[in-house]
């Protein structure tokens, strides 16, 4: 059970959180081509390394926050602009 550093609550068990996906920017729906839109919906980089993710502290402060996580070691680091 890894710890996640919630920027509001401090370190908590990961079971209190919900993974809300790889953080990405939603394209402007009016302007995006179908291809760009579907790239946004369905394509993820899934690197073996640092990845920027969004997490939701559902059993805690109930805030969404960005987090950088290393997918190999599960090391985490705050993004510095979480709150």
């Amino acid at each position, binding site marked *: *059970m*890894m*710890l996640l*550093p919630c*920027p*509001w*609550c*401090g*370190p*908590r*068990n990961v*079971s*209190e959180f*919900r993974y*809300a996906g790889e953080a990405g920017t*939603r394209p402007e*729906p*009016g302007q*995006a081509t*179908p291809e760009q*839109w579907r790239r946004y*919906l369905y394509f993820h980089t899934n690197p073996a390394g640092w990845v920027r993710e*969004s997490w*939701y502290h*559902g*059993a*805690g*402060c*109930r*805030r*969404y926050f960005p987090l950088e996580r290393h997918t190999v070691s*599960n090391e985490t680091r705050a993004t510095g602009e979480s*709150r």
Partner: protein
Amino acid sequence: MTQQTARTTAATAIDRMRLGPQPGEVIDRSATFRFRWNGREYPAHPGDTIVSALAAAGERVFSRSYKYHRPRGVLTASYLDPGAMVQVGDEPNVRGAHRLVEAGMDVRSQNTWPSLRFDVKAVNGLAGRFLSTGFYYKTFIKPERLWPAYEKVLQRFVHAGQVSPDTPHGYYDKRYAHPDVLVAGGGPAGLSAAVAAARAGAQVMLVEEEHQLGGHLRWGGEADLALLSELTGLVAATPGIEVLTDSVVLGRYDDNWVAVVQRNLPGVGERLIKARAKTIVAAPGLIERPYVFDGNDTPGVMLSTAVRRLINLHAVRPGRRAVVLSANADGDTAAADLARVGVDVARVVDARTGGDVVRALGRKNLRAVELGDGSTVECDLLVTATGWTAPTSLLNMSGDKPVYDPRAARFVPDPSQLPDDMLPAGGIAGDGTVAQLVDHADAVGRKAARRAAGTAAGWHATVPTRRDTDKADTVQDRDDEVEVPELEMAAHPEMFRAATHGIVDFSEDVSSKDLHAAVKEGYGSVELVKRYTTATMGPPQGKLETVNTVAIVAEATGSTVAQTGTTTWRPPYAPVTLGALAGRIFEPVRYSPMQPWHEAHSAAPLVAGQWIRPDHYGDPDAEVRAVREGVGIIDVTPIGKLDLRGPDVAKLLNLLYVNKWSKLGIGRVRYGVMCADDGVVMDDGVTGRLGAEHYLMSTTSSGAAAVWEWVENWLQTEHPEWDVHVTPVTTAYASINVAGPRSRELVGRLAEGVDLDPETFGYMQVRTGTVAGVEDCVLWRIGFTGELSYELHVPAAHGLHVWEALAEAGSDLGVAAFGVEAQRILRLEKGHLIVGQDTDGLTQAYSAGLDWAIKLDKDDFVGKPELAWQAQHADYPKLVGLQPVDPAVVPPEASQIITETCSQGRSINPETCSQGRSINTPGSRIAGRITSSRHSPTLGRAICLGQLEPALATPGTEVTVRLPDGRDITARVTEHLAAVDPEGHRQHVVSGDASDDSHRHSRGAARSPIAPAEPRDEVHGWEVSARRSTAELTISDATPLAKIAVRAPVGGAMQQALGVPFGRMARDRDGALVIGSGPGEWLVLAPAGTGASTRQRLEGAADGLDEFATVTDLTHGRALMRLCGARSADLLAKVCGVDLSDAVTPEGAAFRTSVARLVTDVVRDDSGTAPGYLLHCERSSGQYLFDALLDAGAEFGIEIDGFSTAGI
């Protein structure tokens, strides 16, 4: 031998191997009791293990080996002893050399048939040469059809005990712990490290697998015993050390999450401790390694540590005439111990000068030993001391890969790979005198404490629950690292196998010959050899046999031990019961306030997610008829409800729903559909506008939580600039749908201040008013059932009262309660879809019959790009109404609709056609499915909804539905989704007189979701328990307190006014308790009955501020309880994973976390010197949480205390 003589012999045999008192013995000779072994009685003293008591009586054989059924005796005299697995009562696989024997215990041998003495399966041993390597794999593989028969044969041979299906369920426990330093192993190094860490200020958890602390000091000489008493004395005298004996660390996971199983507890099977250790000191000691030679498993061949345990701990003479093979000091000490207690030491063979054994002779008992010098010595005991295995499991689980040191003849940790939070001490770290090892561990303990303090400082800086005065106190100079002395590795001869072959894995009966054979067959890697031969896969899990296995594979492959490498140590380190892993089961359930009525009226319960709902009250068809003909009431409390406030709510609704919201007037209700970004239907429901900036959104029951998170996600991450506050109020309201042509009449009898005239209160409108004397009810005129209906949202504590009032006031109208099943029939008759049933994870909105709702001319809404695409490419499945031609056949839901493949006709998209899946009939494929189906009591026929390919979706088309039994039936696509009243006339039926408001109603007492313990009383309009308890630990229901939620910007003016930041609690001037429950979120608790005035006071405070702040009364939406007493933190630690220490959550701390798997607000609110906690959760789970806390508190003698009126 006759029975008579057998008995006489046995009687004289009793205790014949028990020695006189030994200085370090752990048995209590002042008491003697009896237990049974294979039906015969034996004496024992307290402190004896099963095996030591039997060995004292002269027994030498405790089991038969797995494959060859060879007799097995003591090998290690420890938990790992492979020959000492026994059955105790109905408990199989008990470690007989570890488990303490108890009076009256019924112990039996395992894996013997028909008896330990005469075992027919031992024929396997004679046929040993036919049981080749991989025997089980090779022999029983083919032909496959014979596998069931093989299984029956194999079951006979399984080396395990008997599990009884009649064994009663045990009570297993669980708790969380947050030690600064966890010390795994209570030998001299572990004791020293624990004391050093605790002296340095750390909270220490010391875990020892055996029954006493001390490790090998316990079976040592005078100096060892003196050190033992000194170290255990220090442990007892040093504050901050929690000692767990007969407990073992099972594994280490991410961020030092450690599982510890605690055994031997009164009244509890086992307890699993989930510990978050800031640092771990791994001090498991060394495990003595068996030696491989011919006959090495003969009873009477023992390790030196086994002999020393038997003599010094249990005062048992291991044999009468001994040969000792010694490669180290411990072997020499064993020889000295034997001589001291009068065993005839016939020969000490010194391996350091080339001495060796060749084979052991004897079958049930050792008879003689053939030595390397050619001599044969008669003896009944052969002691081997040939080396050590370092159990590096915990280090491996931290990422370390041990390396082989040939000079020391064992694997040692590679310090370069160890993370900072894992520190080895004692034998796995190196060799030295006991004094050197203790010094080293002392430094390691100090270092561990220092590193833990550094970690704690980092954590403490980020938790909001500490007081301002707590902030600075733990930050220490982290650079001031402790100097840890180096431990030398002592030279040790490399001894794995003698000149002969013998057993390597005693549990799995794998010999060195088998390993050679496996290598010859091509299995060169030790990981493959392990799996092929099953070596290291038995109960000791490699702790005895891994290194020998590696060494023998190395010798067979012509490589070195270092090149061969070791197998991976994985958790669990020791076996654990499934009961301990499961622990107490936490499954939160939710009940509506009307549950007592449902139970009293024999509702059939339906489990819907966490909700327990009435499925029906006996006859769903009759319930349907009552609604269609008169009036019915249904409890729809689980419908998700979100209270939305703020100037930007309309913007939010416009973004999240596919339809338009900007023009919804006050007092109006609209149906809305939400899609995800991929256009797939996510949820639906109606949302009403109660005021200019106040809306109430409803969601599906199952989607409530997800929609709330969804809404928050858009507000928090995409539109933080919008002023909207969302509060879940699902259980703040009891929701009752009153449906049927006479519903207006019934509601009219109870409603006050609401004009029900159909002209003024039209379809899809909302009003607020008083119902049955209950103020602040929300009334929606909507119609899921298709009938005229009113949905009443009643402040939850009065829900039962309003429900009962409806049932009573409508008795002359024939009002019937209806359940979920009748509602499903009614809505299906009306053709209303259920998201998740008539849609699935791929159903985009146009495929859900929602074309009319989707407004592609809106600038943006979630899902729009995909829906625009779907609209352009019209080839998508459609939701259609279907009626089987035979009205009596109801095709089960999920029945497939099939059609011929494209070659035989219809113009269908060739792409989908080529992908068409055949369903058993050549030439046919799936074209859709039945999503909902029921027999309609109104129409007297089967009706369905289904998803269908567009080409088949034209009304009137006949399609083939394949039933699960393979029959095909024909169904016709209908004109409308609705089978009953497609024109919607029934919404507007006018019947009865709605203005009968002849009497005023009293609202009755408000009710908590937690049933009050007797005696009961009424306080401030609430029914409460008047029980008084003087117990040390109490729990009381505090639900009647007013609970007001405040939302405002973090760090803004409102926060200033409230005076409490997130994470803290304080009492204000007016005697209210202000809790910083979330970032920008406060909960204000005030005396019972002051909800309205407290809300007004807070609204007044918010009004004058230049920021967006809202106030919501949640008194009815939440349950509140108080734990009080010195052990309340211990209780909470059994259900809550947050650190409850003063360092993290001191008095005044407020935090939200999972308690018994329920999201709960916890507030530390001590009263005087007694610690206490307030717990606050969703109302519907109040009884669940209360019961879970009572269960967790049983061991502390918790009692229920009644409601206290003495302030908050």
